């Protein structure tokens, strides 16, 4: 039995300690944010935040997140609200909204990782330069070729978050 905290909820699941976190999130907790892409930590489709740090859940044993806070795409808006000290959580993280505004996605499969990583970047670096975005996002692959629009979406989200802080 493993106990973990996901999106501010505690959950206990029957899982071998070496089970990658991804399988617990997808199969035991029925979350659709983190998703299987390679199982090799090469692509970023399975990314979650562990104590605010972007982490590849496909290679992270579930035992390693014991006592830590896991945030998935589903919990990202709440996580942002807490960081930004908003009284009510928005329905979407600003980056999720920016992805819609920029019509950035195509198949959308990579967007879990893109948004999770982008959210981590924006919480650490509220006004990233283009070069900082390119560097931070370089470990997240996309097959449809949506990088240019994702770049624009991150810049838009940074502006939205700056407005919200004012």
């Amino acid at each position, binding site marked *: 039995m493993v106990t973990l905290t996901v999106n501010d909820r505690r959950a206990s699941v029957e899982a071998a300690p070496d089970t990658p976190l991804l399988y617990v999130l997808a199969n035991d907790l029925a979350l659709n944010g983190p998703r299987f892409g390679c199982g090799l930590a090469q692509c970023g489709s399975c990314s979650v935040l562990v104590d605010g740090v972007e982490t590849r859940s496909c290679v992270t044993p579930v035992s390693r997140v014991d006592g830590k806070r896991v945030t998935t*795409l589903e919990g990202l808006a709440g996580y942002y609200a807490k960081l930004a000290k908003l009284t009510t959580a928005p329905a979407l993280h600003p980056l999720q909204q920016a992805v819609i505004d920029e019509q950035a996605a195509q198949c959308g499969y990579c967007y879990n990782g893109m948004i999770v990583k982008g959210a981590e970047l924006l919480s650490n670096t509220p006004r990233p330069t283009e070069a900082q975005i390119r560097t931070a996002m370089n470990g997240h692959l996309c097959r449809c070729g949506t990088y240019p629009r994702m770049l624009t979406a991150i810049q838009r989200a940074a502006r939205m978050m700056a407005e919200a802080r004012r």
Partner: protein
Amino acid sequence: MIRREFLKAGGALVVGFSLRDVAFAQNGTSSAMRAAVPGPPDAKLIDTWIAIHADNTATAYIGYVELGQGASTALLQIAAEELDLDMNQISSVRNDTHVTPNQGATVASAAIERGGPTIRAAAAEARHALLTLASQRLGAPVDRLVVSRGVVSVGSDAGQSVRYGDLLGDKPFSVPFTGNAPQKPVAQYKIVGARQPRLDLPDKVSAKYVYVQQVRLPGMLHGRVVRPQGQGAYADGARIVSVDAASIAGIPGVRVVRKRDFLAVVSPNEWDAVRAAKQLKVAWDMPASLAGTEGLFDQMRSAKTIDSVISEKGDVTAALGRAAHRVQTTYRGPYQGHMPFGPNCAVADVTSDGTTLMCSTQSVYGTRDKVAKVLGVPAASVRVQYYEGAGTFGRSCYDDAAQAAAMLSQEIGKPVRVQFSRTDEHGWDNFGPAHLADVKVGADANGKIIAYEYDGWQHVWSTIETAEQLALGTPANESPDGTSRNLNKITLGSMYDIANLRLNNHRVPGIKGYLKASNLRSPLDVSFAFASEQALDELAHMATIDPLEFRRRNMSDQRWLAVLDAVAKAANWTPSTRPGQSRRASPRAGGRVVTGRGIGLGTHMSSYGAAIADVRVDRDTGLVVCTHLYGALDAGLVVNPAAVENQISGQLVQAASRTLKEEVTFSNTNVTSLDWNSYPILRFGETPAVTSIVVQRMDQKSTGAGEEVVAAASAAIANAFFDATGARLREYPLTPARVRAALAKA
């Protein structure tokens, strides 16, 4: 009877089916019949295509699938326009062999080109039927009726009106689909041709969207296929010498399933299935029957080919003889992979009452037949439901995964989900075939192209999926010749006015000694454009004419000229100051890092694509980076310009990836491109800036918008590399090693 049949067919089958459909079906409409019995529904009935609900909304039933390209939004724009509904009054349902019509596969960028006219005609005829009902209800002739947001009024008299929903309200039209109803004049379009946000995006970014990889059925088991790491030659499949079941004895609850050479593990726990698939000791017979990446093109050239002339006019040999400028060169394009970002997955539930199969196929009806074949059951007993996966860009392993899941569920007697591993997907893809080209082009002293001869070698597509090949022993087989498998006479020279032209197709027998293959986005056209547009660029420089001016001088088709001019204007193209040497006096001039600009044209079936590339080349490391790519596309009437701009943008980035990075490598025994490290694609940090230009043609029929710019941009990148360095790279991808070798020779 209809209701009872539907309920009997329900239960597990209803998974993923919208509540509205269930309710709708239970109302006893023709849709209920459709949900209860195997499709395809009768294409000659309006009810097959359109339903009107009591709440004054409509459902359009569409046979094309959403692949991330935005087709599901654009097709609804067409239906809403013709029905005079707002976009929020119409939706579509999941593709399903018990529900949606059979319009063939969603390939060749056909969703709008072929699917658009059908749904437009059906919606127009549905509207006509509704107006006939309204005419009786309101006591006014049809020609006095006007419709706004599904409310029919007599002239401008709002007092005399009735809603669609009140006229029909979930009852069937029961009228034939003749295709003869009058359609709205283009000049009156409000929704078609206007930018429309994609309907699927909000759920996709909020994790509400369920991809096929996320379908979970109660009591479902997790399956993994076990295969050699990387396919060998197609004919060889994979042969098991021995399986050591004891090697996974330490993982409880795992079952090994073997059918001839088809091998898989199944477990209630996904991680156990993953571990078991990895740990299971299997000895495979791996014959050394491939030429290896290095030997591929020699093998193709010396193959006993099946030759045909695809196109011929004038006397190309004589014209080459009298040409003032001649280029004779050879170009090579590698095998490339689909490699969907999430590997393929399928969930099957095979019971004595029938089979339900959920997968991300481009054709639910095509998959139904393939699954029925491996199960040994009638196709009508299989229901295939479409769940979107990651972008597939052609026929990746989706049918392979579907067949594997079906066979495992049949064997185990429970629902089984098969998730391909990254290595399964990379290693067992149906790759886009490699291509070898000899190109001879000639121009007269004025830079007029007078001769064009293209000899191309490639093999066609594999037809038997790996799961079936291994499980049933079905011999490997190939498709016949045809579009996207032969030289494409549209891509190869048709945009230019050339009096003497010959295209010689050399079909290489691809079963023995070659990899499995199928259509990969812009099938072969990337290689064709890379060769053809580069050869003509070489000719332009030989004739000391600016590459844009050279192309303009040789074409008269107004649509080609318009896309070329559109992209040149967007990129602010300025003529070379040194045509012939291009922008660089010699390959040695300039510093370590040099920049260049190139232009290219491309198409696939009928649309018009043009691209300009700006590249930066580090001559020491050999690294090529696309800094800015411009793409213009004329796809006739563009239903949703916003979606097509996104398609152009994606095509430009993919062109950079395919031209600079992507190549399937293989040894004498097997494919060695098995993950994102051994098959690198373009990364975020290397992404170019992109400029997408839609050349809108409201007066022309809609044509494909998903493939043309990839080809154009691939050629533009190659030509930009020459402009930057003065050297030609006639084989892609333009890897650092190839660049360094080319520059060392220059």
